[in-house]
């Protein structure tokens, strides 16, 4: 079936079987491989993308369910000239990533977190990151990155 949506600001159309998950449509049909698959039970959050401005796990929705949606993946977060989004910059600045595999999902969740909970403190940030698993960083610098990104996004 044909599914149309807007991905990273551009119209996109994919011809996929009806049971295709959004994450597979993104990775395999649109070659947006920055969105990762880290589990098969919607627990790890590596596949998190923004759909109509809200973070969702793209392994947990069919592509067909997102007909007409505006989708932002990690590839669409930076400015067209390559300048990183303040949250991406904060992750680099705070060493909030190591192997990089959970990172795209973590950054997308963090962007959503700061938009919807602009005043979240450390404890609340930790709780709100519950849906994203990182095996490398021990979350210490991710929390710092989210706090720094939060300040940068508020100032932007």
């Amino acid at each position, binding site marked *: 079936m044909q599914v149309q949506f807007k991905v990273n600001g551009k119209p996109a159309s994919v011809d996929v079987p009806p049971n295709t998950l959004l994450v597979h449509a993104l990775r395999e049909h649109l070659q947006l491989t920055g969105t990762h698959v880290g589990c098969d039970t919607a627990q*790890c959050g590596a596949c998190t993308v923004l759909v109509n401005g809200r973070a969702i796990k793209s392994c947990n929705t069919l592509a067909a369910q997102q007909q007409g949606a505006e989708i932002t993946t990690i590839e669409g977060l930076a400015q067209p000239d390559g300048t*990183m989004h303040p949250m991406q910059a904060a992750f680099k600045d705070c060493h909030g990533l190591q192997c990089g595999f959970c990172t795209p999902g973590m950054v997308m969740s963090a962007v959503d977190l700061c938009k919807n909970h602009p005043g979240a403190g450390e404890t609340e940030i930790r709780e709100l990151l519950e849906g994203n698993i990182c095996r490398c960083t021990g979350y210490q610098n991710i929390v710092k990155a989210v706090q720094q990104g939060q300040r940068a996004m508020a100032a932007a």
Partner: protein
Amino acid sequence: MGASDFSSLPHIGEALKRKEDYRFLTGAGSYTDDINLPHQSHAVFVRSPHAHAAIKSIDTARAEAMPGVTKVFTGKDVEGKMGGLPCGWLITSTDGTPMKEPPHPILAQGKVRYVGDHVAMVVADTVEQAKNAAEAVEVDYEVLPAVVDLRDLAGAPKEAALHEAAPDNHCYKWAIGDKAQVDAAFAKAAHVTRLDLTNNRLIPNAMEPRAAIGSYNRASDEYTLYVSNQNPHVERLLMTAFVLGLPEHKVRVIAPDVGGGFGSKIFLYAEDVALTWAARQLNRSIKWTAERSESFVSDAHGRDHVSHAEMAMDKDGKFLAMRVHTDANLGAYLSTFSTAVPTILYATLLAGQYTCPQIYVEVDAWFTNTAPVDAYRGAGRPEATYLLERLVSRCGWELGLSQDEIRKRNFITSWPYQTPVALQYDVGDYRACMDKAEQLADVAGFAARRAASEAKGLKRGIGYSSYIEACGIAPSNIAGALGARAGLFECGEVRVHPTGSVTVFTGSHSHGQGHETTFAQVVAARLGLSPEQVDVVHGDTGRVPFGMGTYGSRSISVGGAAIMRALDKIETKAKKIAAHLMEASDADVEFANGEFTVKGTDKKVTFGQVALTAYVPHNYPLDKLEPGLNETAFYDPTNFTFPAGTYICEVEIDPATGTTRVDRFTAVDDFGTIINPMIVEGQVHGGLVQGIGQALLENCVYDRDTGQLLTGSFMDYAMPRADDFPEFKIGTVCTPCTHNPLGTKGCGEAGAIGSPPAVINAVLDALHPLGVKEFDMPASPSRVWEAIQAAK
């Protein structure tokens, strides 16, 4: 160049932001599953649903007739055409016989031995077609009795024997130390402390599941394997020399961006071999990516020891001798380095930071119907540390000494120090680490915090752990004498380009450690360049001359040292070129900050001028010196390195629910010279969360009767999450390693090694007033609550 000169160079000790981050943060990383080759097929593995069964028959006809299916390979297809997976470390039993080394077939031969064992490989045009066909492969199993728990080995029926070669499921009995002297010391002891403990089995769970693409070019008869792996040259060596019998120059292994390893991606796995071999049979590229559920059952697991330990002391709490017996669960087959983990990498660390003059350790290793067990972050050293540091705290409690006092009374205070279990520690300062940790942890304020917790009806405890580890593995001759079937050196190539920028090729592999930044700092520091002028290439046998890979916290101390050796050669040659340009004698040329000067003159040329001259040799001593500036070096260490430190944990427990919260965690480590403190701190953070995760949350559970994996998803296996931890307090002490040119010791595993006993000692400290004396990991609410109830 010596370590002290090195550590004072620019960029050494600088918290440089990582060069690799931009690609990871913008979705431009290239992990194996992100790679797609033209006309590739997809593979799905049929895995055993049983822990132990005989295969009576396999019928692939229906599966092979399904749409898109190219071929279903079974054990019959590979039988006689290739070897099994090799074990890289030979352990010899106390009676002089070699360990039992049963075959580990690429696809099952007549029998399956654990849930997840690889039975058949289905190749089809799409993943979905391969999955559907895999379900249509009919395997007729005759279920056999399974044994998964070490406690059930004795008295198991003879049908529970996994391998013909090991009818009692026993792989080896290994020992180290002088038993007679240890027994004599125990006979004279004023006090003996005894401890039984279990080191729980863990599942590594790197966030990127294993993945591989086998590919074959008929025109050149060359194979390429893309694989999520920590040591592509070792992967190639094992696969070509021991399994497929292929010449190495025809096989290229590429480990591109790898999403975490933690040991589980060191090993040669059956899937990698099957894909490579089948690529030629079908003359096409074949891709396989594990689903997470598949990773749970088929990745090598970690830990799984059951031990009894005893410490003999004099009346003042001075250690006289230690005696340990450990049963180690190796799983169903011998994974690549599995046999070294509970022996060489474990028992040799049981001296810890203490002057215990006599130690005797005996290890029995067993086969069970579980996934193979192998190295997992720390590999043997966490098991040693957990046992010793639990035992030492208990010694203190039994003698009425505080956890710090019992340690201080027994600390080694002069180096080099020869332990009774083979290792010689070159340098350290254990007391300095403890003092700094106690200060950072505000131990002085603990009593007040405990009183505040009591007032809320909560139990607070403090736990210490003073760990040591052996890293920088390893001097090849010593490793060889101990049973290693490979060398353990490292290789580095420094290629200076004509315009003065540099590409470094290293046999180390980064899967999160940040080598592209740290190694660039090393080269930039030595050559007087900026780190932006240095790129680091790793993970490709087609580009890197050779390598042994990354594990055992060895990258900087062995891989970095190889680069230092190559830089020595670069410097030597560059000085000759500079001498020619400045019309001076080689011996009078000095090099610092990127400039060559002649002693006692104002003559100078820059590194860039020398590089250009090397490639445009118009004014060049061509009769004495080859053009070019490109050097390769191999470095084989002369000893292990010995990172050490003290960790202090404070927990608060709600006795009504058993909920245990880590309230404070302090880690002070001595890693020797630190190149990039930001990266090192990040490594400590990650290690701590894996270690505290083991102590609080993680536990791999197989059903004791059926051998089914009960913790087979992130819904069932408790992975550490952001809200399980406080902010950690981190500190360092520096005694530079004495025998490598950087003074580094390695930092990747320390957190996971030192932290579990700190947490459990804190739990026990909190629960002692309630009568709890014994506790095994993990400290989940139900287990803590049950321990409290049992003590009532």
